[in-house]
């Protein structure tokens, strides 16, 4: 049986850990609520933009209205935009993202016949894949807890520019999709070339839209914004996932610490009782001896 002083010290140290994990949990919980709200608020815009793009895609299918961002080429280079948190302490989230991305960029048939490059967003993903000597087209860190379009636009603009210049032929987005507070799933979304959503029968078949100034110009305006938006949405979802994962991980850690504290307290009380009993035995033994 360990002595009581040692057990007391362990208890105190676990208590301190629990205080820290609890504080991180509370902070993550409040950030999570806002990050989730923002991810949900961005959805109507994305949905509407997809409908408009759907209406346009009927017209865009014709060769004379095609746009560089719709053009499919043979793939000589693929860029993967990987969105990860800047900080750890969020459970298995980062490891899952890294494993998922690893299969794409390091696997046996990575990039098909072509090269692979990456744009890591967030420190964790960048640090990890740097070790494998993968070419980075750019890297972004510290977007903040609540990034806006202004922060994510540079990311999408690099992808668009490289694609238009023919430096890359395919761009994919990897991020932790937010399912709910306890579930976040790494997903891969191809963003370039843009795959226009299939337009539904009712809108494309019967309605003839007037386009101002012209279908080509509207498309040229809309496509870059659409890519901006895909990246923006992914970043928002990733932020919601990060905070949720951290909240859950830290709640588990706090619970584990509290369990440990109560186990240790039990051991401590037993040890203390034993000590008192043996002291009492010593004293009564002494008294008996004096009476003798």
């Amino acid at each position: 049986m360990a002595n009581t002083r040692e057990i007391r010290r362990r208890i105190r140290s676990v208590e301190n850990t629990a205080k820290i994990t609890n504080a991180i949990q509370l902070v993550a919980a409040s950030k999570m609520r806002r990050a989730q709200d923002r991810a949900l608020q961005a959805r109507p815009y994305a949905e509407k933009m997809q409908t408009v793009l759907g209406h346009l895609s009927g017209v865009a299918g014709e060769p004379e209205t095609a746009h560089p961002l719709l053009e499919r080429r043979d793939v000589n280079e693929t860029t993967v935009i990987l969105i990860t948190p800047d900080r750890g302490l969020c459970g298995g989230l980062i490891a899952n993202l890294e494993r998922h991305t690893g299969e794409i960029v390091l696997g046996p048939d990575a990039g098909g016949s072509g090269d692979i490059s990456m744009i890591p967003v967030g420190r964790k993903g960048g640090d990890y894949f740097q070790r494998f000597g993968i070419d980075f087209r750019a890297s972004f860190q510290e977007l903040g807890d609540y990034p806006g379009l202004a922060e994510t636009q540079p990311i999408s603009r690099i992808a668009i520019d490289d694609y238009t210049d023919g430096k890359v032929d395919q761009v994919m987005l990897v991020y932790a999709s937010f399912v709910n507070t306890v579930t976040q799933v790494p997903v891969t979304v191809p963003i370039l070339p843009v795959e226009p959503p299939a337009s539904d029968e009712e809108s494309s078949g019967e309605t003839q839209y007037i386009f101002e100034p012209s279908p080509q110009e509207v498309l040229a305006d809309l496509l870059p914004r659409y890519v901006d938006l895909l990246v923006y949405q992914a970043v928002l979802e990733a932020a919601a996932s990060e905070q949720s994962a951290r909240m859950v991980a830290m709640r588990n850690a706090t619970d584990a610490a509290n369990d440990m504290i109560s186990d240790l307290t039990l051991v401590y009380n037993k040890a203390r009782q034993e000590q008192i009993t043996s002291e009492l035995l010593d004293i009564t033994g002494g008294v008996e001896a004096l009476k003798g």
Partner: protein
Amino acid sequence: MPLTLEIITGERRLLRQEDVDEVVAPGSLGELGILPNHAPLITSLVPGELRVKTGNDVEEFFVSGGFLEVHSDEVTVLADAAEHGSEIDAARAEEARQRAVERLEQASDADRARAQAALSRSLQRLRVLEHRRRRGGGGRDMSRPTA
């Protein structure tokens, strides 16, 4: 049948109103008015003022560009950024205007386009404010948006 108007930005849904009589928007080919039974239309927008008429009331919004779609009496504005007249901060818009003018004077060609765009946004914001003031303000106050 009146129009249904939705103004959506990447960050929030600013407005959804179902009894709109007329929408006047800053289209890229010039200002355009939309009345009920308008033909289906998709147009890009430039920075400017969007006016919404409901009965005798008029409300002004600022949009910084984007798209507008009309389909079966539903008008959807997909704006890069949009504000209700009551949300615009006059001092900030004025400051932005001055900054843009200064930058325009000493800008290289690359910066010129951006300064120009910033200038046009600030001027349009001020114009929305001016119209709102001349009309006598009133209407909704969205300066403190409900979460």
